[in-house]
């Protein structure tokens, strides 16, 4: 449905997007993740035909956005970073105008405007001027605008920016629903959003794609080794030695000592579950096992890991920091 091949965009000497390639199939929700200035907006602007690429190709619904822009744009709904609203127009007039320029036939226009307003939950402000709306409503009117012509592809640049927590949840649900028969690309720097709504993630940094995978796979892939977190009441004894002796364990580190209770991080080779053996070792020594759980890297840590210069340092930092 969406195919991007070796896309490069240069602004003079600055390369904003550098050899980016990815695909999105029908019905898929693709998350575009990256720090500010990574090239997310530029990539989206190229996909929507707002600006041409310096090199490479972008296809929407089988049409090249450069060579057949009208056909490609007909199949695309786009919510830019700042919702493109005319402050002097009422919401209904604005959506009616958008429907007109998107080629919705006259007879269907009123119905399409109404259903978009319902889906984006802006029907209650239909008669208000766009300029007088709150940030959350503006964002949703922008979303209604993108849905108007029922496009096959939706490109949403930070769709939840400026919404309150309840609206964020509602918008995420809407995006999930849309994923069924639309292809959705959404950019964000809010990480839980990606793991909650997207089927696949493209992580982009400094204009380059650093990873493409499902949120689960990304998490797994980055765990070169498994780490368990334990709390052991060793009654004054040092449990490190005993735990290091468990088969499969490659390292033990004391994270914290709180009286008799030691908080430990135990590393083992990837794919090997050492939990039973660890528990057995604690119990045989007569200590109390207060907690035993695997430590997973959150997407946030992966994100930091992938987009930070000093990868090794960042990984350690992230693995240690996200626990408490």
């Amino acid at each position, binding site marked *: 449905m969406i195919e991007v091949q070796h896309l490069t965009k240069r602004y003079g000497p600055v390369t904003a997007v550098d050899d980016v390639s990815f695909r999105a199939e029908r019905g898929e929700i693709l998350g575009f993740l990256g720090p500010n200035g990574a090239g997310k907006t530029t990539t989206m*602007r190229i996909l929507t035909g*707002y600006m041409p690429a310096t090199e490479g190709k972008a296809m929407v619904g089988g049409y090249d956005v450069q060579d057949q822009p009208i056909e490609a*744009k007909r199949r695309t709904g786009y919510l830019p970073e700042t919702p*493109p609203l005319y*402050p002097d127009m009422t919401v209904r*007039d604005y959506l009616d105008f958008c429907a007109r*320029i*998107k080629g919705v036939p006259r007879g269907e226009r009123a119905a399409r405007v109404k259903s978009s307003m319902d889906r984006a939950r802006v029907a209650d402000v239909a008669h208000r001027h766009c300029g007088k709306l709150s940030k959350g409503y503006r964002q949703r009117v922008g979303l209604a*605008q993108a849905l108007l012509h029922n496009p096959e592809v939706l490109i949403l640049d930070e769709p939840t920016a400026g919404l309150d927590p309840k609206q964020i949840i509602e918008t995420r649900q809407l995006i999930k629903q849309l994923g069924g028969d639309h292809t959705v690309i959404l950019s964000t720097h809010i990480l839980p959003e990606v793991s909650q709504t997207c089927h696949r993630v493209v992580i982009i940094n400094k204009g380059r794609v650093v990873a493409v995978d499902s949120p689960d796979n990304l998490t797994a892939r980055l765990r070169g080794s498994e780490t368990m977190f334990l709390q052991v009441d060793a009654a004054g004894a040092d449990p490190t030695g005993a735990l290091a002796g468990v088969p499969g364990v490659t390292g033990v580190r004391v994270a914290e000592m709180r009286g008799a209770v030691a908080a430990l991080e135990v590393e083992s080779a990837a794919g090997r579950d050492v939990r039973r053996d660890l528990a057995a070792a604690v119990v045989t020594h007569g200590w109390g096992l207060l907690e035993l759980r695997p430590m997973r890297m959150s997407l946030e840590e992966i994100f930091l890991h992938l987009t930070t210069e000093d990868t090794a340092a960042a990984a350690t930092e992230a693995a240690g920091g996200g626990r408490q």
Partner: protein
Amino acid sequence: MNNILAIAHKELKSYFASPIAYVVIGLFALMFGFFYYTLLGIFIEQGMRMMGLQGGPTQNVNDQMIRPLFLNASVLLLFVLPMITMRTYSEEKRSGTIELLLTAPLTDFQIIMGKFLGAMALYAAMLAVTLVHLGVLFAFGTPEWIPIATGYLGLLLMGGCFISVGLLISSFTRNQIVAVMATFAVFLLLWVINWAGPLTGPRTSAVLDYLSITSHLDDFTRGVVDTKHVVYYVSFIAFGLFLTARSVDTERWRG
């Protein structure tokens, strides 16, 4: 065509949603009324004096009043039209709505034509107000209507040229003040460019005369529609819109 009309309709509506349309039409009507009043006063005073003279030259309301009125109106356009065109692109660029237009299934030509027609419609509304003034003359006298009709045609065409230049300048900047000042300066230059004629040779002087946007209006106000002037105005408008299209396209590449 439907797309062009959709844009034109939106443009016209946004003029009337902001104070711009009212200020522009109001000020134009006020100034036009002033010119009308003074020219009519002079005309009547001359008429009074003529009545004393036997066999003197007869008076002609078309030549002595309506023609100067049209020429004065064309000076007013110099000040008023930049206000109409200043926001066309600048405002869209500043508020980011240009992104909506450029990512909708529209061609650049449709967007530009829509904006041009929207501005022209407001301009035509502005001129329509002056029909009232001239209607009064018909109520109390018998002016010829042909020079009036061609005069309006000339004003429309000349205004079209100004609007196409204004669109072009508005596409350069996101700042409306810059747009309005630059447009005004260019209009003024197009107006007075043939003043430099005497300083140059006869050939350059003829070229400058041809370039001057107002030298072409004169025949229209006399009731003459000369193809050469129509060609000048229409090609001027087309060229202005073409350059606007290039400018919008260049802006795309630059981002």
